[in-house]
């Protein structure tokens, strides 16, 4: 007699694709650092300081911004960052 109980999965039944993290570059020279303002208060202020420090060391930066921290970054923005920079620094907190 088989009196097992059948259940149905309440989850999305999807498996996220996992990729190994790219190793950090040995040096930032010759590379572009994306500075992403995620929309939190004073993010830009923090990134201004970071940019100044990087520029003083001869490192190129590119600024990007999310319109709000409350929603995920749009795919187009992520594509722009991937196409225009090698490394990303995010200003996360207030």
């Amino acid at each position, binding site marked *: 007699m*088989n*009196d*097992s*109980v*059948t*259940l*149905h*999965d*309440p*989850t*999305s*039944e*999807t498996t*996220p694709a996992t990729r190994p993290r790219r190793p950090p570059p040995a040096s930032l020279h010759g590379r572009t650092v994306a500075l992403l303002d995620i*929309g*939190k*208060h004073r993010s830009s202020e923090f990134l201004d300081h970071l940019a100044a420090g990087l520029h003083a060391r001869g490192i190129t930066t590119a600024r990007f911004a999310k319109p*709000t*921290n*409350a*929603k*995920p970054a749009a795919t187009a923005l992520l594509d722009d960052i991937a196409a225009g920079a090698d490394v990303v620094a995010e200003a996360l907190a207030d």
Partner: protein
Amino acid sequence: MAVVKDDCETCHLAIPVLAEILRAGHPLTVYWQDDGAFLGPDLAATATDDRSLEQSFHLDIHTVPTLIREEEDAETGRTEGWNRADWRDLTGLPALGDGLPAHRPGCGSRSVQPGIAESLRARHGDTGIRARTIEVASGADPVEACYDRGWTDGLPVVPPTPERILRMLGGTRRDRAEVIGRIPPAMAPCTVEKVAVNAVLAGCRPEYMPVVLAALEAALDPGFTLHGVTCSTCFSGPVVIVNGPVARRIGMNAGLNALGQGNRANATIGRAVNLVVRNVGGGRPGEIDRSTLGSPGKYTFCFAEDESDEEWTPLSVARGVPTGRSAVTVFAGDGIQGVTEQKARTPEELTRSLAMALAAVGHPKLCEWAPALLVLSPEHYAIYREAGWGRERITGALHEALLRPVAGAGGVAEGMPPSYRGPLIPKFHPGALLLVRAGGSAGLFSAIIAGWPGGRSFDESHPVTREIRE
């Protein structure tokens, strides 16, 4: 063949007729669904036990008695209930049932009774459920199996068996394959069926399904920003407020302890919404749900508005839903801040007093920060009602009472940007202070549910109201 049950007067009427068919030399099998003794000695040899209802299911019996004619193992005709002409036609016996009335309606087959029908379909048929099947071995506890798979919010869940899912799907007319939206943070597509599976887990009754679906659709409105509500370091979860006839029909609580425990609809509708976010969207605490402290409302937070006073404009109506229609409003809210005000006797006094408490939302030093939901108890509301104040006037008066100059932060770290210096600053953005009536008849208490500050403007996350499609 025929299918009958003892608990049916028309089946009793048909017994001598069935015996007559047998005497005429027709091969006959009589399936009985409850107690075969009533068939008597004439039919004893042909009576076949179908208490399991398996044959009734496979024969797709809806009514008893049903008489089916088979030729060469194929059905060539059937009739339901007692209809003398039809029975004569089907059997080819011109004098069948002489002396009986021409027509008697039959009774419902046990195989289509609510609850039984879904069980039979799960056991013997194709359930049509697309969600992955998991077999829990004999002797293992299905509740523990749900824990093991991470499907719960920490409380036990109702195991989502096919029977329960089918019953839950019976609570909505919507196609089970319909995608209601993508659930953040994983942005996973969510079908009506997945909602039903999670509604089973939560302990919902099928009639709650339209409310659960509407609440989820409201929460998926981009304006609500469910992604941020779920992943934020703040406290909030979706608070569901139900208006209209559906709230009464499914027995929701808008009275005593409306914001607390004890009512199945209140408890499980809110829980189902959160379980969908957890299980379909992947919004699990400690993972992408980064709430610093969380709040009890992240298990469930759902209640109905008290609409017993015709003078009061219900929340849904104030937000554009026609009077008399059912609706949900989702509000990204924290826990409850109780307001004890037992001395105010005039609407002006009460307004100033409530405003003092509302000033603490987020922090007293913060303005135009988080929204708030003020739940007015009947005794507090009575003070306004006696003075002729309705929703609009109360809301306006509260906004006015909450205007204040920014004059430093009282010795704590600065909370407002310098641009706020000078004029009177409102505590809440326009539209960010919601009023709801609920609670028991005694007690000069109201409750404030602080909202999620969201981004940095009210446009980035705000309450959403949706009419319920039933």
